[in-house]
């Protein structure tokens, strides 16, 4: 049981990282990347390849992991920039659901390209840290899981700092609150939208590197993970990063605990949870209620 909770927290923190990507773009311009899962897949595969190249070049373990993360984050940020320019901005706001389909379209293309490059088979993603297991009483934690936990904490801390303290983060918040007023203050809402998508994609990419050694990698791995991260974001409340963190952890734990009893319905538990949460809290756990004015 304790084991399930610990591995649930680890998995949940990855969900939360990916889900923060939904949050950032949603509050900035009310759109999300429904292909976040495939961006994650691409991040994992690019990460795998980069890691292989870097380590075979004989670099130190930690340096190579760091290099991999930077490369993936940069590559995915570029892709996110392209996504905003290519699939979000040209849509305008004629149809409120157009962005769902346009981001799905991009993700389909990415999935296809990934399949062409990396093939159809599941590729094992050995953790750069090996498979050693540390034992704390009855709980076993792999080195990789510790790495995930540390990364999650660092990324979350950076993200919260960036969003709440840095000028750029405040500019994002301003655009989220009122794009017109923000643009009068000299903030370019479009640039912020690009930034949001770049950041969101980078998070997905890093999430891919973290999740890869746990699930292994394949071109079709993204869909489920993307949806689960979306579920985490919704459970927590799309407009609240803290809620998303809680939502992700909750989802991870519940999944792992359920899989103790019946592995068959592990996936179902996540979606049952979300239905129950939304029936009673239609804005998620920590989402803000907006009173509409007429």
């Amino acid at each position: 049981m304790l084991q399930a909770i610990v591995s649930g927290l680890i998995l949940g923190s990855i969900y939360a990282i990916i889900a923060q990507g939904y949050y950032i773009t949603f509050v900035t311009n009310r759109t999300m990347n429904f292909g976040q899962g495939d961006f994650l897949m691409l991040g994992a595969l690019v990460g795998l390849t980069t890691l292989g190249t870097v380590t075979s070049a004989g670099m130190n373990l930690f340096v190579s992991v760091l290099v991999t993360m930077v490369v993936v984050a940069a590559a995915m940020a570029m892709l996110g920039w392209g996504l905003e320019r290519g699939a979000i901005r040209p849509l305008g706001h004629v149809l409120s659901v157009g962005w769902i389909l346009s981001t799905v379209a991009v993700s389909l293309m990415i999935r296809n390209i990934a399949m062409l490059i990396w093939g159809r088979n599941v590729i094992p993603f050995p953790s750069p840290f090996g498979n050693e297991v540390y034992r704390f009483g009855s709980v076993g934690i792999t080195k990789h899981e510790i790495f995930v936990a540390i990364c999650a904490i660092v990324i979350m801390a950076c993200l919260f700092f960036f969003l709440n303290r840095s000028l750029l983060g405040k500019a994002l918040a301003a655009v989220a609150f009122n794009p017109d007023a923000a643009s009068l203050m000299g903030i370019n809402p479009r640039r912020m939208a690009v930034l949001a998508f770049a950041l969101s994609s980078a998070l997905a990419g890093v999430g891919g590197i973290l999740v890869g050694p746990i699930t292994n990698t394949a071109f079709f791995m993204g869909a489920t993970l993307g949806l689960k991260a979306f579920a985490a974001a919704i459970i927590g409340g799309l407009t609240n990063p803290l809620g998303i963190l809680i939502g992700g952890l909750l989802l991870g734990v519940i999944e792992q605990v359920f899989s103790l009893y019946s592995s068959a319905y592990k996936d179902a538990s996540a979606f049952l949870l979300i239905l129950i949460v939304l029936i009673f809290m239609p804005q998620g756990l920590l989402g803000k209620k907006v009173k509409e004015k007429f």
Partner: protein
Amino acid sequence: MKKWLLYLLIALALYFFPWLFPSSYYVHMAQGFLYTYIVVAGLNLLVGLSGQLSLGHAGFYAIGAYVTGLCTVAGVPFLLSLLLGVLICAGAGGLVAMLSLRAKGPYLAMVTIAFGLLVEIVANRWVEVTGGPAGLYLPEAKLFGLGLGTVSYYWFIAVIALVVTVLIDNLFTSRYGRTFRAMGNSEVAAATAGVHVRNWKVLAFAISACTAGLGGALFAFQNAYFNSDTFTFDKSILFLVGVIVGGAGTRLGPLVGTIVIFLLPQWVQSLYNYHLLIFGGILLLSLIALPEGIVGGIQRIFKQRNQYSGTPSLPAPDSDGPSQMGSRDGADLNVQAAVMEFDGFRAVDAIDLQIKGSEVRGLIGPNGSGKSTTVNMLSGVYVPTKGKLSWKGVDVTSFPPHRMAAAGITRTFQNLQLFHELTVLENVMLGFHLHYRKGFAANILHTPGFLREESHFRAEAMRLLQFVGLAEKAGEQAAALSYGQQRLVEIARALATKPDLLILDEPAAGASLYEVDNIVRVIRKVKDSGIAILLVEHHMEIVMNVCDTITVLDFGKKIAEGDPAFIKNHPQVIEAYLGGEEVTKLVVG
């Protein structure tokens, strides 16, 4: 009867198809096309008309397939199983709608995604019943003991598809379609016209779940075998793609959309390694190039709006007042110490208000004084935190907007809430919502009774439009009108509900001088017919001219009440508007 000729031609084409393409491959493909089309057409009703979203229609598709399939396996006749499957889908659709009622936007999307995925998981894992990925073998579909071969099964699907098309098309052009569209445009305006928005949302979901289930059941029997691999999230997305790319809310959209999602993949299948790339690319390009879908884009080019009625001939201008404004009972409103708080902030603080008979009551006050909040409370949009509203002796404190409308209180909106996709005439016709008597069956079948009712209310709506001076704009889209004209349309729509108290929220804001005159004339006429008016307005000239009594609010409190002359010279009112002594000192120095 051009429409029926068209249907006949389509029926003939469908009938002769197996002779034109005498290969089981093509007949098979036609079957697939038709049942996919049925699903897309139903989803179009939900997404295109009622403005809701479903990313879980594969779930209904699956339920239809499994219920029908399992029933026939259990020995129930095919047709009866089909009916059962469709009915259970309707129930499931209603259930999903109930679950997602309070959820909006991405949250609603998530509820439908979760539903679709849950169904998929059950189908995959409950192997004893569903067969899971190994599949389920079905007996041949039989119609009254007659086995249906490939071609006759195709004809069976064709008949159903044609019937579904006719019914959905009827629904589009009936008041049901109009109400769905209105709800999609502005929920709150539909509610103040008396539409029970929750029930209508559930209805829209149930109908579109029905068609999805029907499509699923027809799919299941196509090969007398199916497995759980079909019912994925991607399938739900695919259906949605069909609706959006075809043209959401258009009548031909689903047909074109189905060509894109069904025939296109068949065509690029030979390029298996690239088909997602090609499909995704086409989808992206079409979304960018044709944001309103293919049919929507074409309609825009040709400006041919599918209106089922041109501007109807004007009725003889018998009198200036339309019949539905005959003598009304007048208002009897009593507000006692109503309080409205938002997160501890008191927007309205213990207001008392009485409106009786057919008076015109002005409600004025500086910005932020609580006028709009008061209007929202009176029309049922907000429920007061404390206090009591009684109307004609009945406690209406917690009535939602549609019940307020039924009781006789309705309103217009400061920030216009017209149904912008509807014509001006249709907007007003929607106002009669509470007075339609013909039910769903009459509307979907276009019975003579329904047609009579439609023309009756169309004439009534024309009279109202003539009354507000917009008869010649009847056929135009509401969004194309000027600000002041849109406000007049809102008044006409509100009058159509036959209210006893009409709340006008800044009717003259943004109106031209000519339109202001018209609005003042309309207010006077409405008053004469016995309807009370609560007028919220900043134009002091209008307020002082037309109001019998004026209530003044400041910081959520009532500071004065009396006739215009009294209010004009009331020191507290002057202070509220211009500032008190301190302010004067500050300004003057």
